[in-house]
């Protein structure tokens, strides 16, 4: 129907102007491709909308004309996500690159989807903040692409992936209708559309804007380069490092083949005679980073490194990261094509998989160079081939498939960050069970019933011939995988039992829920299933995480009793839509959790409590003069303001400090009132020393720590969260309230009268015990989507839920 096409093109052109629509052969050829080397169709045309409204209008026009839409950021995707289906309109976000002002109080910024990842950190730098997800493509890749792929990067070891750094998304559906996932807050309960859209590869909705969570820059960074004569020694060193209580912010390994490539490209001076080099980075207050670097050096030397050296200065550090981040680009010097893979396995399986990759290399006679995010168990073997040599491509893909299967046998995932795209549609059924596959397709139908958003991507292959994976046997007792830093437990396991079991291994679940006895603000009765389903939190949440950040894997039953399995015991995983984030905080309305796997962290070696009585008590001698140096975020000022005002919130103030094994203070675990030592429950059985300190000592300690977390110990409190962009002001301290706050995240006020204030949202999640029922959906939510999800998981409505969710008919 050429006339229909012409009419549509004319309409696009009217909307977007002459330079906003490309229809020439040049554009149709260029936009048919991306970094994946995969090819499929020729687009109908390329649209370059310059406003969020125009973007939605373009999508609406496509809906009316029955044209499919493929979004495109920078086309750096490695799984073919941006490769257009035949006749699709390719919609580029290149002209949607606006960044709002940084909300420095909350530590957040709103960005349009075409903003380049690296531009966010440059924009936030004057405020001492940065955007933590740092894919190696960060100079070029866009936020829309990062969000659609749930991109990770070297520093995800400590900071998590893109999904962890989203406050809210604005998006439009396949009809071009605009929606929002709600106010830009840190913790949101309910059906997590933000988590579901993130990683959905442009197949569920189109991101038109995002509020991003920013992270304070660490005061000090130490980057180490270790040379390992044996590759396996390097991979085996990773779990040892974490078990030794060191948590680097990044651990990367480059193998010999990749070293050769990188050296040829950048001549950084890496040794060519070793099987691997490791880059490990430690960050935090100077003393912490130094102590971490010392401990890391010791562990690595003990694990078979022949030498470990520290980057002398910022320039050398930058060069080291450049050579890592540009490694894959450099592969072009060795081979015209390569299959880029990103399988991920539990940390404890890393060495085993590396061994199997060597076998694959020999068996298929292929060249494989690897640089990988070792700390995440995320490997990037690049299998070289030359598409012009007969059979080469097929052989490379067969080798790649063999590696994927090996990773899956080891409990891993086909993709840790690049996404399924076109490339891994065939491999997804090897990982996903039949029920999960039907749930994934059900989700797609709810969002995009006509199948117009990026069809052919992200979902597992379907059809009578497809055989899906079996569900791994559901654990019936608690299992700690020390090497992989993960714990698996039946959902009914009390959190306290779980915590006790992992502490015995020197690990802990960094959730604020723990105490068997009702400690201040803690409930004794929570089970791990409840903690996940209701996103329970305790007062230590903010220095740590919620279950949303820690959930790796779940065994569950849908409302109609169908059992399914989601995720894997790996740190990052983008195989299929993120069912786990959807289950977190859904309050059991979609499915019943049977067992879960959660991420563990090295337990603090000891917590020292410092306490002192308020000024006026004698030794404190008035208000403190010292401000915590270099602290960003409002916490410090609030706390100091409280002191400066001579306030005595709860008869005294105390700080609970976590120390590294070497005795170096690493962070503030808790800050609160009371004269009895405030010890965070579950913080470890190790030495806890309570001491009184005067205000000066405490301030000096805080300035040593530089980026404290804040805590209130009180029996009954209400959670409040700052809303990004709402002009949140710091609440003035007063005798009737006290804040506990970790940088930009949630603030707790004691259970006295809640303070209504501009920019704060009450979030009564936890009032001395149990979580609240599923809160009503935030404004801007598509009720029909939420109800559709409910029907997909629980067609007969057996699991109940609030009326707005179960109510009949589409809203």
């Amino acid at each position, binding site marked *: 129907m050429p006339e229909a096409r012409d009419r549509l093109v004319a309409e696009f052109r009217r909307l977007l102007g002459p330079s906003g629509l490309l229809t020439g052969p040049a*554009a149709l050829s*260029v936009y048919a491709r991306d970094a994946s080397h995969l090819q499929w169709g020729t687009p109908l045309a390329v649209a370059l909308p310059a406003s969020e409204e125009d973007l939605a209008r373009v999508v609406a026009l496509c809906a009316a004309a029955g044209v499919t839409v493929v979004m495109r950021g920078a086309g750096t995707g490695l799984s073919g996500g941006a490769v257009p289906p035949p006749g699709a309109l390719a919609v580029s976000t290149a002209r949607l690159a606006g960044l709002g002002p940084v909300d420095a109080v909350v530590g957040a910024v709103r960005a349009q989807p075409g903003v380049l990842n690296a531009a966010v950190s440059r924009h936030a730098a004057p405020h001492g903040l940065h955007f933590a997800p740092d894919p190696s493509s960060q100079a*070029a890749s866009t936020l829309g692409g990062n969000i659609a792929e749930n991109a990770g990067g070297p520093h995800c070891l400590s900071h998590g992936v893109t999904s962890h750094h989203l406050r809210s998304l604005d998006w439009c559906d396949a009809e071009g209708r605009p929606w929002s996932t709600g106010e830009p807050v840190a913790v949101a309960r309910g059906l997590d559309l933000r988590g579901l859209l993130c990683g959905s590869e442009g197949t569920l909705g189109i991101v038109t804007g995002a509020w991003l969570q920013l992270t304070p820059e660490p005061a000090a960074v130490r980057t180490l380069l270790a040379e390992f004569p044996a590759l396996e020694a390097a991979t085996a060193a990773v779990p040892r490092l974490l078990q030794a209580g060191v948590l680097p912010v990044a651990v990367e390994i480059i193998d010999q083949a990749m070293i050769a490539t990188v050296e040829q490209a950048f001549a950084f001076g890496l040794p060519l005679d070793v099987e691997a080099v490791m880059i490990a980075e430690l960050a935090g207050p100077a003393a912490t980073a130094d102590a971490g670097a010392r401990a890391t050096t010791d562990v690595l030397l003990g694990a078979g490194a022949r030498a470990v050296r520290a980057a002398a200065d910022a320039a050398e550090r930058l060069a080291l990261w450049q050579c890592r981040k540009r490694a*894959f680009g450099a592969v072009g010097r060795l081979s015209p094509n390569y299959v880029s893979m990103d399988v991920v396995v539990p940390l404890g399986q890393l060495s085993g998989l590396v061994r199997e990759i060597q076998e694959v290399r020999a068996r298929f006679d292929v060249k494989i160079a690897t640089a990988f995010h070792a700390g995440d168990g995320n490997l990037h073997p690049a299998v070289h081939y030359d598409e012009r040599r007969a059979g080469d491509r097929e052989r490379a893909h067969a080798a790649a498939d063999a590696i994927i299967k090996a990773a899956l046998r080891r409990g891993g995932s086909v993709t840790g960050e690049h996404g399924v795209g076109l490339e891994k549609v065939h491999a997804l059924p090897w990982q996903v069970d039949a029920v999960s596959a039907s749930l994934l397709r059900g989700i797609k139908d709810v969002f995009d019933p006509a199948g117009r958003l990026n069809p052919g991507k992200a979902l597992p292959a379907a059809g009578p011939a497809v055989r899906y994976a079996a569900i791994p046997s559901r654990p019936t007792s608690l299992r700690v995988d020390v090497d992989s830093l993960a714990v698996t437990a039946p959902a009914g396991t009390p959190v306290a039992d779980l915590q006790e079991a992992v502490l015995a291994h020197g690990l802990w679940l960094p959730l604020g829920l723990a105490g068997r006895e009702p400690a201040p603000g803690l409930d004794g009765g929570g089970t791990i299933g409840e903690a996940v389903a209701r996103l329970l939190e305790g007062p230590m949440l903010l220095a740590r995480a919620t279950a949303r950040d820690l959930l790796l894997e779940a065994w569950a039953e849908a409302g109609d009793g169908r059992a399914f399995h989601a995720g894997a015991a790996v740190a990052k995983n983008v195989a299929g839509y993120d069912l786990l984030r959807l289950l977190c905080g859904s309050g059991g309305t979609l499915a019943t959790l049977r067992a879960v796997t959660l991420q563990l962290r090295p337990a603090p070696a000891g917590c020292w409590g410092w306490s002192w009585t308020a000024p006026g008590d004698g030794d404190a001698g008035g208000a403190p003069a010292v401000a915590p140096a270099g602290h960003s975020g409002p916490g410090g000022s609030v706390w100091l303001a409280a002191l400066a005002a001579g306030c005595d919130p709860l008869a005294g103030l105390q700080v609970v400090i976590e120390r590294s094994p070497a005795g170096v203070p690493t962070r503030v675990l808790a800050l609160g009132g009371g004269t009895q030592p405030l010890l965070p429950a579950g913080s470890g059985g190790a030495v806890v020393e309570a001491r009184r300190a005067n205000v000066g000592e405490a301030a000096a300690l805080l300035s040593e720590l530089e980026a404290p977390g804040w805590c209130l110990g009180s029996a009954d409190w209400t959670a409040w969260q700052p809303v990004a962009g709402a002009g949140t002001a710091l609440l003035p301290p007063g005798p009737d309230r006290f804040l506990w706050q970790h940088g930009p995240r949630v603030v707790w006020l004691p259970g006295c009268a809640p303070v209504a204030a501009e920019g704060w949202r009450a979030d009564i999640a936890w009032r001395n015990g149990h979580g609240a029922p599923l809160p009503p959906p935030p404004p801007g939510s598509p009720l029909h989507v939420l109800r559709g999800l409910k029907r997909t998981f629980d067609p007969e409505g057996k699991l109940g839920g609030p009326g707005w969710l179960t109510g009949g008919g589409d809203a």
Partner: protein
Amino acid sequence: MRDPRPDTRLDGRRDELDALLRRCVQCGLCLPVCATWLATGDETMSPRGRLLLLGDLLAQPADGPAIDPTVSRALATCIGCQACTAACPSGVPASLLEDAVRLAAPSGPAPAAVPGVLLGRLDEPAVLAAIGTLAAVGRGALRALLGPRWRGRLAGRRHVIATIGRLVGSVPRAPRSDRELARCLDRLCGHGEAPTCALPAAAAPRERVLWFAGCAADGLLPESSRRLRDLARWAGAEVVQPAGTACCGALAAHGDQPRRAEELRERNLAAWGGAGDEDGVTALVTEAAGCGVAIRGYGERLPAPQVDAIAWLARAGDRPPFGAVPLKVALHDPCHARHGQGIVAEPRALLRAVPGLVLLEPGEADACCGSGGAWGLRHPGLSAELGERKARHLAATGADLVVTANPGCLGQIADGLASLPHPTPPVLPLGDLLWYAAMRGAGDSRT
């Protein structure tokens, strides 16, 4: 008329180009440094896009269809700034893009506003000097006609006066006399007048260098060029400028006149030949970054290693101290310095050595300003757009002063800044700022 079919232009180089092209892994890391992509968001105007299109042309049979205009436009708009080459981890060479440009438009579309005859003679200092004078007259007339913010009023418009405005606005200029320069900077710094406005040479030169000023410097910015030599003498150089040199040949080479480029090279080599025989010539110092790259390309026959003037200054270790210049300064690196010669640290080291000076880095620092010599004349609209974008980034730093080290960039940035709708900082040659700092330092040590 240009030949529409690719193969006749490929001259049997298919295999060679193809082999180079296959180095590109399509990673896209070159996109964010490409000025034409940044300004348009159109990936056909990105390095990766151009290489993909070049690949398409190579894949066509010898008697394939004519090159589509969207393809030739995409290829021909490449500035040749080499930003992408510097960013590319795969080592895809800049020459590929040059080939792509030639393929698309062997002699380029006729420049929109400048007669071809003139374009061919832009490498003659006398012609350039005349252009400089004409431009000054033109600017004066436009100012009289439209008021002091005349350039801003013409920005983005499409009529004859706007085109003339763009042309005369982008002709590089700098303070003619040392006094004028000093007054301008004194005012910005809040300094009182210096007792003497001159820069003394080092008492005992430590190094003897051959000096190549270049036609644009000679023709358009003779005083700035001389001040750069003053600086070199102050820093301990004995400057040798043999007679008989000519244009470096870059313009001819880019204008697809390889024969003329060769001729000019031979003339220069001959002129240096005599001087090079003298003892102790340590370097061949070049002023404009573009000349630097062209002369480096002469290869082994150079009498001494080519060194950019700024880079030479930075490495001249025991020069006297600079005087204070309490200004916030934003620096723009010419592409031929930053990408062509890898000069990044040197100007920064020099500026950081100036007491009181705060160095600011603009956003999109890697990207070309869109001057591109003759390129800017061939693509006036795009060139103006790029200039404004660059100017916006420079102005956004909040700098009191913008500096850069190439005549082309200087004119382009001055025009871009003048086109913005709000007051903007002045722009000066980097060498002029350093000359002033050195002069102030010398003055201080005298008093």
